[in-house]
């Protein structure tokens, strides 16, 4: 099976004002995701995880390298993949319902049809009864789910998630991870997730790419052979700990 996203020899550098020179962020990266997989990208901050996600989404272009995405013209990929950022980025002047159909609104879809679609999913997203609330009236977890709903409703096959749960408290985060797995099963998506939480990466993923600091070329991949469906107890199993033991030294000192 061909991968749904295939990246070869990707290089990206930024101009650094401090050193007055170009700094290489991503150096010759190879990377792929199969259809239906959950793949995590883990590494210390500043290693270029978010840059890689920006490049895949089309917000930025690489200096060199090839990107291939199944059924998508790579030169016009911006707007063809769902991308959810760290912050929920809900618009304060729109209700939960209004925010969730924003993507459909941009595509000039019929408004009442879009609303019906969104309302049908409110229960799944734990937002039932809050459709007409404004973002500053609901909790952080709900805001994140509303942001998710906006992402899901655009109905793209690939979801790029940039530390989607990092702003939430740890209990809410655990609930959201479990919920994400249910969602993934239900909607049959391919997910690329950036995180700096090792447990989160292992718990969710089929494979994990581990990136070191930006000076390093290497990107290591680890296969997560845990059965699905997974529940919380899996984090206590020996196989889970073994994977964690594998990852820790790869990250270097910063995770000490």
């Amino acid at each position, binding site marked *: 099976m061909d991968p749904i996203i295939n990246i070869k020899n990707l290089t990206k550098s930024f101009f650094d004002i401090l050193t007055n020179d170009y700094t290489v962020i991503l150096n010759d990266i190879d990377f792929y995701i199969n259809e239906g997989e959950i793949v995590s990208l883990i590494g210390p901050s500043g290693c270029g995880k978010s840059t890689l996600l920006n490049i895949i989404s*089309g*917000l930025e272009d690489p200096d060199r390298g090839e990107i291939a995405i199944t059924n998508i013209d790579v030169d016009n990929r911006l707007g063809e993949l*769902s991308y959810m950022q760290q*912050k929920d980025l809900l618009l304060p002047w729109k209700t939960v319902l209004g925010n969730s159909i924003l993507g459909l609104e*941009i595509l000039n879809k019929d408004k009442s049809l879009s609303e019906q679609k969104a309302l049908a999913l409110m229960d799944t997203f734990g937002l039932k009864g809050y459709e007409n609330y404004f973002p500053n*009236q*609901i909790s952080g977890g709900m805001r994140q789910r509303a942001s998710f709903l906006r992402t899901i409703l*655009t109905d793209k096959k690939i979801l790029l998630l940039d530390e989607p749960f990092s702003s939430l408290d740890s209990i809410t985060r655990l609930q959201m991870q479990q919920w994400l797995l249910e969602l993934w099963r239900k909607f049959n998506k391919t997910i690329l997730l950036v995180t700096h939480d090792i447990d989160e990466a292992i718990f969710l993923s089929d494979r994990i790419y581990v990136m070191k600091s930006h000076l390093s070329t290497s990107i290591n991949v680890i296969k997560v052979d845990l059965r699905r469906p997974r529940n919380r107890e899996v984090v206590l199993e020996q196989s889970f700990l073994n994977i964690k033991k594998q990852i820790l030294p790869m990250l270097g000192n910063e995770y000490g």
Partner: protein
Amino acid sequence: MDKKIKQLLAKLINESNKWLPAFILIVILLFIWQIICILASIPKWLLPMPTDILIELYQHWDLLLKHSFVTLYEIVIGFSFSIITGLIIGGFIAYSKTLEKSLYPIIISSQTIPIIAIAPILLVWFGYGLLPKVLVVGLIAFFPIAVNTIDGLKTIDEDIINMMKTLGASKSQIFKKIQIPNSLPSIFTGLRIGMASSVIGAVISEWVGSSEGLGYLMIRSKPQFLTERVFAAIFLLSVIGLLLFLFVNYCEKKIVYWKTTSNL
């Protein structure tokens, strides 16, 4: 029914709590003013007592009201003019880099010219009528409105723009759906500042040359030592300013509705 009355009463008490301290302070200050005038027997032409001003307001109500309406009219027309031009020009500057580079420096540097200095020239060009007043009010209120419009349209979270791009939004969609609503709170700040300065603009233009309006009344009353009339005119000017300010606030509450919804 009983519940409704209770609710209304609670609302009234709540409202009066907001205004009462300021109101009491004003009454105390007026009282001190009155006492000082009486004790020091200050002549009416130098400093009239608050009661003199009240009597003046009562006795010449028709005259004062007539001139108030003239000034109010100038402010409303001039202010509306500045809103329209401020929003349009501000919008264009925020949308286009070329216009920003060419027009924005000129608008900023035009502010170094005191409007009072232009008022006599406008008078020479356009006569004693309504037009020069509207232009002065418009010019003076235009700047804060335009600058705050540009600010509001341009000050925006880069992540939100990126989010819109990944949803496939075009530049004009981002402008319409994000930048415009995002700019509204800032625009209302500009409107409030513009509102205050437009009252000043109307009075100044009437001082320079006019045959009616509160500014004209003040200029006419001063040499006649009708100081209480000058004070009455000042009082009415502040009433006009206050009413327009409340109107702008009311509109803000209606239009920027999401700012008033509280946290749970």
